[in-house]
């Protein structure tokens, strides 16, 4: 308002000027912002997009906002501006600290790579008394001793274990049924502990077992050596026994009995279980989850079949589509969310691992979700015959006659031969998602994995054509499903944040 006094005898004349727009009073209103690296991918059919920054922090934005921001036309008064600024999508005259913060977060995410291989899997025998049609590790009859790992092979394998610079070493015993070669497990644990007196690593052991042959001797040994137990539980008795046939048709009864006995000796939380989804599981996801609840597990890992081993030979892998598995998965996830609303503290581990990547600056140790891929550099397998494989899946592939990911042999090759050979380095470098066509421009790339073994198995090369990749379809559907649920419900967001910080 401007007052003009023409003379002392005249009434003041009021001339009113309109206020300028609010932006005129904002010192940064006309300051251009600078975009930092970001990507976007459609979330759904409602014009919503997921935008991620360099380290995977995300926002859900509408199409118009995406376009404005990309064209440098987003006004500071736009509600999205501050959110983009807070998540390091842009810098402006007010602050450019985002560059240093992003560098710090990149370094945090990649830091575990420097530790190198932490998980060392010993296949102590291929023998097994089960004959599961979906078994991803081809088995041998349980009286054929030539499928046992020898003492010499075990000791040579331990040489390689302790060459890894990782401050934490986990040795996992697998089979076949690992407990059928308990004497060798005992030898490996004893020898690893002896070597660790000077190596001074954080050493841990896990026995993967179906529990059917678990006896007091094995339990006492696990107790004495602080060994964790991981078992298979596919659901209620009828489903579990159909999936996992054995003489006597009592696999479920033995597994449940073994879980109780192992918990009684080792402690409740030192016994874990994994399930495998077969076509018979697809209509029973709630019953499967209820079985895990009944047995007082704190969560479940709803995982699909992998295209390896007997799963291919018996056509189990092709028995259901990826779309059908996704229906199964989300039905299960929604059921678990509803259980949490009712007060049950129960977690879905696959979602939790993905959410850890989405909502924290940390990485997961789940090999499938690592990029660079986790093969060899996060986990490695010493087969019963001394062959070293890049991953458990690589061993399964080899059982089908494909030795692509056989890295060497403990009796013939040095640590350097195995870790620096083309068989490992080529798939690692080729499949790095940050530079792969289809992945490098995808907003979900910071959360995703490379999985060169899966793409080799299904498409014949470690990179794979992503529009045809079942891994890509499954992962993208999972990311979208989790974000959609978080966006729709603040309680679900709070639950997912809790899972992310526990995974």
């Amino acid at each position: 308002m401007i007052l003009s006094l023409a003379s002392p005898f005249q009434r003041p004349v009021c001339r009113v000027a309109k206020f300028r727009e609010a932006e005129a009073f904002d010192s940064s209103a006309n300051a251009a912002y600078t975009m930092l690296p970001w990507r976007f991918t459609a979330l759904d059919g409602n014009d919503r997009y997921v935008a991620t920054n360099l380290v995977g922090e995300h926002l859900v934005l509408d199409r118009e906002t995406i376009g404005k921001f990309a064209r440098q036309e987003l006004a500071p008064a736009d509600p999205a501006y501050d959110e983009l600024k807070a998540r390091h999508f842009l810098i402006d005259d007010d602050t450019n600290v985002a560059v240093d913060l992003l560098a710090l977060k990149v370094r945090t995410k990649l830091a575990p790579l420097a530790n190198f291989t932490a998980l060392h899997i010993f296949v102590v025998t291929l023998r097994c008394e089960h004959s599961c049609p979906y078994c991803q590790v081809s088995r041998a009859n349980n009286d054929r001793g030539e499928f046992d790992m020898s003492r010499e092979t075990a000791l040579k394998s331990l040489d390689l274990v302790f060459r890894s610079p990782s401050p934490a070493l986990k040795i996992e015993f697998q089979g076949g049924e690992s407990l059928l070669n308990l004497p060798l497990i005992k030898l490996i644990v004893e020898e690893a502990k002896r070597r660790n007196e000077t190596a001074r690593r954080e050493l841990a052991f896990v026995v993967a077992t179906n529990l059917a042959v678990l006896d007091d001797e094995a339990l006492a040994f696990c107790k004495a050596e602080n060994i964790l137990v991981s078992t298979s539980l596919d659901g209620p008795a009828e489903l579990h026994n159909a999936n996992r046939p054995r003489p006597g048709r009592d696999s479920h009864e033995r597994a449940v009995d073994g879980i109780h006995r192992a918990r009684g000796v080792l402690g409740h939380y030192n016994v874990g279980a994994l399930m495998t989804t077969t076509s018979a599981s697809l209509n029973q996801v709630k019953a499967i989850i209820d079985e895990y609840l009944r047995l007082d597990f704190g969560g479940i890992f709803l995982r699909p079949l992998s295209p390896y081993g007997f799963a291919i030979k018996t056509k189990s892998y092709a028995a259901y589509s990826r779309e059908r598995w996704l229906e199964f998965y989300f039905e299960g996830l929604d059921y678990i969310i509803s259980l949490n609303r009712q007060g049950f503290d129960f977690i879905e581990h696959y979602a939790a691992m993905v959410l850890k990547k989405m909502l924290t600056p940390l990485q997961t140790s789940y090999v499938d979700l690592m990029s660079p891929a986790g093969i060899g550099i996060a986990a490695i397998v010493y087969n019963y015959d001394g062959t070293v494989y890049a991953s458990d899946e690589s061993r399964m592939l080899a059982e089908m006659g494909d030795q692509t990911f056989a890295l060497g042999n403990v009796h013939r090759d040095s640590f350097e031969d195995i870790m620096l050979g083309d068989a490992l380095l080529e798939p690692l470098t080729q499949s790095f998602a940050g530079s792969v066509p289809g992945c490098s421009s995808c907003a979900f790339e910071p959360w995703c994995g490379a999985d060169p073994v899966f793409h080799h198995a299904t498409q014949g090369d470690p990179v794979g054509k992503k529009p045809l990749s079942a891994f890509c379809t499954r992962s993208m559907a999972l990311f979208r499903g989790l974000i959609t649920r978080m966006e729709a419900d603040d309680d679900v967001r709070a639950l997912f944040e809790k899972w992310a910080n526990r995974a």
Partner: protein
Amino acid sequence: MATVDVRILATEPEILCELRALDKGTKAADADLKFRREVTDHQLRMAIEERTSGYRDLILGLAFSKTGLQGG
């Protein structure tokens, strides 16, 4: 998962894109709209990448400069 196959016929001065549905459930109009959106989105992605690549290199350079892995 791919729902449409695209054949690109580049004949100056035109570029002809031929869309073929990979399953019977895909409608031609939907496929056309989706394809056009995908093209414009990708152009935007390329523009963003071009404008931010310098900062990407800077941030990655900063991140790796403090890992303690230098010097062999």
